[in-house]
């Protein structure tokens, strides 16, 4: 088997991976970087992010205020040292992107414009109309082309971490074009593979969001942290789950139930101001429609239980009404919202309200890292949605994740570069053998296997249903237990999966099987961590334990993979200057 070698390997070519690659080029342009991605970098899911990226830049703002908003939003589960680093490094990272050409929306004087965002008490969200992630990703990708030290492995699927002598030294990866498995060695490896929203049936996440990096880390013994915290975005289009950005509400959009009533006022999110009166102060920051995502999604469920939502053939919805903004403002500030609603919901938001419902959007949890993006496995780093530093705790504030992938992508790149300079050698023969083992495993389990009777689509549908039933917005012991047991059953049945396609070149069915295998591992970590957390905090709501319990659970969960059910351990949250308090919005 061929063995390819680099100083640093990055798995994942989205925002975090590209930022890491550029950081390595800036740190030491002599280091060779291998960028392994299962899709071409500009296809990565960063591209779908819409609303904006938060960083303190305006004179009326302060680091202290951004830190407080983030910690409050996290329901005190964020590590405060990490939040402080994040907030203080954010402005320079955002400026770098501006210097690389990102087309930020501007004020008349030419300075960068900011908009309000949910749970932020001061306007600090930079935006590029409502395609912020798209512009950030393409700016990063185009900028990365300047660096001659990056070798891209586009459409290679990372199968397994290669670990020898107690440190990670590369990955075994499948080249999709040829179907060949190769050992790609790196003295340091950075995982930037995104989240696993596809374990749920109704999600804003692209098809590629299958938790591959989370799973290969988990299988190598690295714990997954705070996996029970899954963010539902309150405004997805029914049927497709396409995201309608929070920016629609930041620009003044309102949420109403079937009676046209702004129902959020009944859920401890403050009082509505007149959205038709330009002098009323609407939209008021961190109030009503600009409350945090967890609280808004929970309010939808309560409203549905009261029978005050609107029935459609794709489930219950409420209305997001932006008509009062007028056509000009809609076209200028949220043109993509209009395009998506027209194309995929068949309505023009200039004339009609947009039907929306909560939709799985983001995983607060991920691969356990410290503030330098280092995981407990020496040589392994992680950044972006696949990582959990943690700055997001039990609920991420909108517009913190795009900034997070810059700050911690850059940190991961710098740390990995330094690590690679200190560790010069490879245990090549042993690593090659591990990759050959992985090649054999894949051949035996998927390609040369006959007689299996399980289909990928069938198993995935059952997994999706189990996750929604047990690990949705409101959870109970009983349902979580059933979901956990179902996942164990599905993992067992996965051994009998049957592929139609046994050929080598560009076998997307094989990739789908490998992705499903990753999703099963991620789902297991989510469901067991949720089962064990007997309290309610942020996005994790247990109707059988409705209160936050700081005595027992002001702690991160750590899920470790075993041959049977995962082992869940706990780690204290880092509290520095902001002691836990009541989480208040709208008063």
């Amino acid at each position: 088997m061929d063995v390819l070698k680099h100083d640093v390997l990055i798995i994942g070519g989205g925002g975090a991976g590209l930022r890491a690659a550029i950081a390595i080029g800036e740190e030491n342009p002599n280091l060779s970087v291998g960028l392994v991605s299962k899709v071409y970098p500009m296809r990565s899911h960063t591209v779908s992010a819409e609303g904006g990226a938060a960083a303190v830049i305006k004179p009326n703002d302060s680091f202290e205020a951004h830190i407080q908003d983030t910690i409050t939003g996290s329901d005190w589960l964020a590590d405060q040292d990490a939040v402080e680093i994040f907030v203080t490094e954010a402005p320079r990272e955002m400026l770098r992107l501006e210097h690389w050409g990102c087309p930020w929306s501007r004020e008349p004087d030419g300075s960068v414009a900011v908009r309000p965002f949910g749970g932020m008490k001061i306007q600090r969200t930079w935006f590029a109309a409502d395609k912020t992630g798209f512009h950030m990703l393409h700016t990063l990708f185009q900028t990365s082309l300047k660096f001659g030290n990056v070798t891209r492995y586009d459409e290679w699927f990372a199968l397994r971490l290669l670990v020898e002598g107690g440190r990670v030294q590369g990955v075994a990866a499948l080249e999709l074009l040829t179907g060949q498995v190769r050992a790609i060695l790196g003295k340091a490896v950075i995982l930037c593979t995104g989240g696993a929203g596809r374990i749920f049936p109704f999600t804003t996440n692209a098809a590629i969001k299958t938790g591959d990096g989370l799973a290969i880390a988990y299988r190598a013994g690295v714990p997954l942290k705070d996996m029970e915290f899954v963010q539902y975005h309150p405004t997805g289009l029914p049927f497709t789950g396409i995201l309608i950005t929070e920016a629609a509400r930041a620009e003044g959009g309102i949420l109403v139930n079937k009676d046209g009533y702004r129902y959020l006022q009944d859920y401890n999110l403050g009082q509505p101001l007149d959205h038709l009166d330009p002098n009323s102060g609407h939209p008021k920051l961190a109030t009503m429609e600009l409350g945090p995502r967890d609280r808004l999604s929970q309010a939808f469920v309560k409203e549905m239980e009261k029978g005050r939502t609107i029935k459609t053939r794709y489930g219950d919805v409420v209305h997001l009404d932006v008509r009062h903004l007028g056509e000009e403002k809609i076209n200028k500030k949220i043109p993509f919202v209009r395009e998506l609603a027209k194309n995929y919901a068949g309505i023009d938001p200039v004339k009609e309200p947009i039907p929306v419902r909560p939709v799985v959007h983001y995983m607060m949890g991920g691969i356990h890292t410290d503030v330098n993006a280092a995981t407990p496995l020496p040589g392994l780093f992680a950044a972006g949605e696949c990582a959990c530093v943690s700055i997001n705790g039990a609920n991420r504030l909108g517009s913190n994740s795009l900034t997070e992938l810059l700050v911690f992508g850059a940190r991961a790149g710098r740390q990995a570069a330094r690590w690679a300079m200190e560790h010069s050698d490879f245990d090549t023969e042993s690593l090659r053998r591990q990759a050959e083992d992985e090649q054999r495993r894949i051949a035996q389990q998927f390609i040369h296997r006959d007689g299996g009777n399980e289909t990928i689509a069938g198993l995935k549908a059952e997994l999706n249903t189990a996750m929604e039933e047990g690990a949705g917005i409101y959870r109970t012991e009983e349902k979580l237990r059933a979901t956990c047991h179902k996942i164990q059953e599905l993992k067992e049945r996965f051994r009998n999966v049957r592929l139609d396609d046994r050929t080598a070149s560009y076998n997307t069915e094989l990739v789908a099987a490998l992705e499903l295998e990753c999703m099963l591992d991620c789902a297991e970590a989510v469901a067991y961590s949720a089962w064990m957390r007997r309290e309610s905090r942020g996005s994790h709501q247990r109707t059988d334990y409705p209160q936050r319990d700081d005595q027992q659970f002001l702690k991160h969960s750590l899920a470790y993979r075993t041959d049977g059910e995962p082992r869940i351990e706990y780690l204290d949250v880092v509290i520095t200057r902001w002691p836990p308090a009541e989480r208040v919005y709208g008063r």
Partner: protein
Amino acid sequence: MAADHSERTCTLEVFRFHPETDEHPRFQTYQVPYHEDWVVLDALNHIKNEIDGSLTYRWSCRMGVCGSCGMLINGTPRLSCAAFLRDYYPRPIRVEPLSHFPVIRDLVINFDDFLHKLQEVKGWLVPREPRSLDDGEYRQTPAQLAQYKQYSMCINCMLCYAACPVYGHNPEFIGPAAIALAQRYNLDSRDGARDERFQVIQSNEGVWECTLVGECSAVCPKNVDPAGAIQGAKLQGAREWWASLLLSWGKSRT
């Protein structure tokens, strides 16, 4: 995927080619359930999940922004996530890989050529005046932003290359999306590398090859208007040619 249950079906004729087993491409016909809200990509996913796991194509976001799922649909380059069955039904829908690219397998094309071209045109910002982070952002007014914004919307979906007769005839042609990206940076008030890009674009395989049929702009799903970018580059080229003549004339007089 939740959907209404209907008895109606829709016919898809899908281009198939497997390099390991097929000498020539062929078309395979599938019957899929017809749903008003389905796009062609939903129908392909239905085939892959329920009928034939070997069908091969790219897709990801299903919201028209990742650029993965470009195909020829009844002969026209489209994003399959934005092409609704209802716009074709009850006629059969023919699905083929994007033209002008080598086919890897079924609907998957090789577009590495485009990635090389992005590199060639220096598709990134080269600062006109270097600026330190301590100096804050470059000032750029909304009017200056509007100069290039449209050309920054390209999702690299390759529909314009599939529609471009010049690229079909001459694969050396840099092509619509790469020229649009070059213009995107040329028109950015922060950029200073217009002359370097100018050299590449004005070369033989560049902008003068384009006969301005405008097919690229017609198929662009994001209204980038690459034909406008090419026209702009041509004008710029002509202007600078005249300027160089006048300048040398002026010099020779003094």
